[in-house]
C-alpha cells in the first residue's frame, strides 16, 4: 500500500480496508505523533470543501507534516487555463503526496497516472470519495464492534449519492444485508447493485421508511436534493417521506446508530441529536483518524 494512490474504494481489498481501520484505532488513542517530520503534502482543492479539507489538513499537521496547496481553483493557474496534467506534474515536483478534490469525474484516476507521487482522492465530482467511505466503515465498526453480517439501511437519494455507492460497494465485502429506502426516482443504480449481486448478498428495496427501522443496525441517512427533480411538485411529495424524527426510533434496536455524511438540512430532525443513537457528529471526527492512518500508510511511516 506504500506509495500507492487511493482513487476509488475498489482499489483496496477487504484486508487492506481492515488494515487502515485498525491503524485508525491507534491514531484515535494517540492522534499527535511526529511521523511526517519534513514531509510536504499538497492539498489541492479545485473545488471548495471546507470539512474535507480541514479534516485532511488537521490529520497532516497533527502528524507533523507540512501542507501546501489551495482551497479553491479561482486564485491558481487553473483559472488561466492550465491543464490538470500540467498542474499535477508541477505540484508533484514539490510534494511527497497529493490530496486532491476536483469537480470532474475521473480526474483523480487520471492524476494518479501522470503523477510521480501518490494521489489521495478527496472527491472527484459525483464519482468517488474513498476517505468518506473509510470513515463511514470505521464508524460502523466502532459502534457495532464488527463490520460483518450487519443490517444496513440506506435512506434518501440512493441514485446520485456517491457516499452511498462507495459504502454499498465496500460493505459488499462484509456479508451485509442491504435495506434500500428511496423514492422510485432515486433508486440505487444497477451498476452499484451489480456489486451486491456479485457478492451473492441480499438486498431489499423500500419506498416506506417505517417498516425497516426495527430491522436496522445502521441507518445511513442522505439528503434528497431539490435539483434532482425536474418537477418541483414531485420533490414536494417525497421530501417529507424520508425525514427521521426521534419518535420513529421508538421500536429500533438498542445498538442502532444513525449516520449521515453531512451537511444535513432537514432529513434528520434536530430532536434526534440528543438521542444516544445519533452518531453523525462523532462520525465526522473519525475522519481525522482514518485520514492519518491512510496518509501514514501511503507514506510508509506506519
Amino acid at each position, binding site marked *: 500500500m506504500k506509495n500507492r494512490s487511493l482513487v*476509488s474504494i475498489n482499489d483496496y481489498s477487504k484486508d487492506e480496508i481492515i488494515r487502515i481501520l485498525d491503524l485508525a484505532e491507534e491514531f484515535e488513542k494517540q492522534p499527535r505523533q511526529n511521523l511526517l517530520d519534513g514531509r510536504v503534502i499538497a492539498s489541492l482543492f479545485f473545488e471548495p470543501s471546507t470539512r474535507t479539507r480541514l479534516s485532511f489538513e488537521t490529520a497532516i499537521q497533527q502528524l507533523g507534516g507540512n501542507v501546501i496547496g489551495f482551497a479553491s481553483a479561482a486564485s491558481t493557474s487553473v483559472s488561466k487555463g492550465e*491543464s*490538470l*496534467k500540467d498542474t499535477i506534474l508541477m505540484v508533484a515536483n514539490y510534494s511527497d503526496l497529493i490530496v486532491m478534490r476536483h*469537480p*470532474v*469525474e*475521473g*480526474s483523480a*484516476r*487520471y492524476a494518479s497516472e501522470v503523477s510521480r507521487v501518490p494521489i489521495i482522492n478527496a472527491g*472527484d*465530482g*459525483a*464519482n*468517488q470519495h474513498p476517505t468518506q467511505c473509510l470513515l463511514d466503515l470505521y464508524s460502523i465498526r466502532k459502534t457495532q464492534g464488527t463490520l460483518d453480517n450487519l443490517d444496513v439501511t440506506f435512506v434518501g437519494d440512493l441514485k446520485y449519492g456517491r457516499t452511498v455507492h462507495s459504502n454499498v460497494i465496500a460493505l459488499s465485502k462484509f456479508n451485509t444485508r442491504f435495506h434500500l429506502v428511496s423514492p422510485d426516482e432515486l433508486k440505487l443504480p444497477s*451498476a452499484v447493485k451489480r456489486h451486491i449481486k456479485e457478492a451473492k448478498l441480499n438486498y431489499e428495496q423500500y419506498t416506506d421508511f417505517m417498516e425497516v427501522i426495527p430491522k436496522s443496525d445502521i441507518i445511513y441517512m442522505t439528503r434528497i436534493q431539490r435539483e434532482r427533480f425536474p418537477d418541483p411538485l414531485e420533490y414536494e411529495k417525497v421530501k417529507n417521506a424520508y425525514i427521521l424524527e426521534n419518535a420513529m426510533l421508538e421500536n429500533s434496536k438498542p445498538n442502532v446508530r444513525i449516520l449521515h455524511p453531512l451537511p444535513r438540512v432537514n432529513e434528520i430532525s434536530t430532536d434526534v441529536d440528543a438521542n444516544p443513537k445519533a452518531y453523525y457528529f462523532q462520525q465526522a471526527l473519525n475522519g481525522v483518524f482514518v485520514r492519518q492512518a491512510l496518509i501514514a500508510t501511503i507514506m510508509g511511516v506506519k
Partner: protein
Amino acid sequence: MNKKRKELIVSAISNGTVIDHIPAENVFQVFKMLDLDKTSHQVYFGTNLESKKYGRKGIIKISDTYYKDEVINKIALVAPTATLIEIRDYEVFSKVSVSIPQTIEGIAKCFNPNCVTNKEDVKTKFEVLTDENGQLKLACHYCEKTTTRKNMVFF
C-alpha cells in the same frame, strides 16, 4: 450450393478484406468506424441478405485494404458476430471471427459529459462488460460510469 449463390450477390474482390456476418442494422456503423466513406479503394456491400445463422446479415468487401487488430476491435463492438476474411488473389488467405476485447482504448467516447476524458486531453479507456441480456456495456476506467449500447459514440 445456396451459400455460393449468396456470395455472388456482392461481387468478388481479387485482393482485400471481406467482413461477413455483420448484423444487418449495423452495416453503416461499420462503414463509419472504418472510414469507408473516405477510402479511395473499391468497396462493395450488401445488407439484409439471408443468413442461415443470423436471419439477416450484412457484408462489406474492401479492395486492397487490410486491417490491424485494433481496428478490428472497433468492429467487434457493433458486429460481434462478424467474420473477417483476407483475400489474396481471389483466394481466402485467412479467416477469423472478431472477438470482443476485454478493454478498449481510444475508440469510443464516454457518455458522461463530466468525465475527465471529455474535459481534458485524455485518451478514453473502458472495460467491456456484458449485461444480463447479453448487451455490451462500457465501464469507464476514469469516471467509472457505464456507457450502454444505445449511448455509444465512436471516434
